[in-house]
């Protein structure tokens, strides 16, 4: 199958992909999201970042060969490995563009490229909080922490807290 990631409304695509990614690997809560797909098209080569909000919705730079990228041979679900940038879309937040990384047939990362709002200010629409998997925090749990943050400690709760243990260790 040809490598092609259609990114519609960039924001909607962001949430759909994030949710879809979660749903595909866990029993995450599914949200139904609808989008009017205005059809930005991503090209299938790693590192492509220059799309534009042109009048044509279906500019396709990979139509003759979607598999000439060196990392596309292990694909099992039709999507070749690589990084795909969607076209620039106008949203109420300003112009937005999303980048998707596919590895081993699965979406491994979704980032929104830094763009501008209506006032021309640089903004990070990517700053939206998206669902993440528990496994993403597991490795960090064994970090040698200096301090522990949590919801307000009452004095009683403090006595049994991690922060208390750190203070008593006195290092």
């Amino acid at each position, binding site marked *: 199958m040809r490598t092609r990631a259609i990114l519609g409304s960039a924001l909607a695509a962001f949430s759909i992909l994030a949710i879809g990614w979660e749903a595909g690997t866990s029993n995450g809560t599914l949200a139904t999201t609808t989008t009017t797909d205005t059809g930005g098209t991503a090209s299938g080569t790693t590192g492509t970042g220059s799309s534009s909000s042109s009048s044509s919705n279906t500019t396709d730079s990979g139509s003759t060969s979607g598999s000439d990228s060196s990392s596309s041979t292990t694909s099992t679900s039709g999507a070749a490995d690589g990084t795909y940038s969607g076209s620039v879309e106008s949203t109420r937040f300003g112009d937005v563009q999303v980048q998707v990384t596919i590895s081993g047939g699965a979406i491994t990362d979704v980032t929104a490229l830094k763009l501008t709002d209506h006032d021309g200010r640089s903004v990070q629409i990517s700053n939206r909080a*998206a669902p993440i998997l528990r496994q993403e925090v597991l490795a960090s749990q064994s970090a040698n922490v200096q301090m522990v*943050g*949590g919801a307000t400690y009452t004095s009683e709760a403090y006595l049994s807290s991690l922060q208390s243990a750190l203070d008593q260790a006195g290092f």
Partner: protein
Amino acid sequence: MRHHWTTMGTEASIVGSDLTAAVIAEVERGFADVDARFSLYRPDSELSRVAAGSLRLDDASDDLRGAYARALAWRARTDGAFTAHRPDGVVDLSGVVKALAMADAAALLDAGSRDWQLGVGGDLCWSAGGTSGPFGIVDPADRSAVLAAVVPAASRRALATSGSAERGEHIWTRLDLPVSPFVQVSVLADDIVTADVLATAIVAGGEATLDLATERWDVDVLTVDRAGELRATPGMRAAIRSAAPVG
């Protein structure tokens, strides 16, 4: 060096390699002064007298009116999710006062130390260019465990966490807002007041305030909802990845 004491009805800790006893004493005194003025648990505090009606807000100190103005400004910025009043209408500045006191302490510590970390009641701030982490974030489902550790980006100076698990009365939920889906919200920001106010506001205001906060402010956010599911901004994911021990 590590120092621990009790203030403002909660627990405080300072860690630093070059802290002096004089700086620590100054920091402790600052918190004690703020507590004496703003505590609603002390009937003789200035804010208690305002709450009781024996002191008019107009006649209150510049410090008190300044804190009230800050709280009102944050209420406006967060579309009402953050509030400076209890449901019974009494002025309650506990939502900003601790953070303002921490900001004052941060200025004192910056002047007297190159590398420090301060924790008060589960909210943290630290020196610029010093040791920024790893910091742990408590698991709301098991308070003896770390949910995630973070090594914040260089500009970050504060990590605040709010929740409904431990001290429910700390956050007033507006009656016209839906029940918060979040049991815990952690915010990394470049200053402790922004981090603390937004963490509190997101718990109180739910998803709408979460979206508003991540749109409007340069902050990293980690939320835990009632089902235990996590949500994180990209900056928070990067901070969590950075905390994972290599190998």
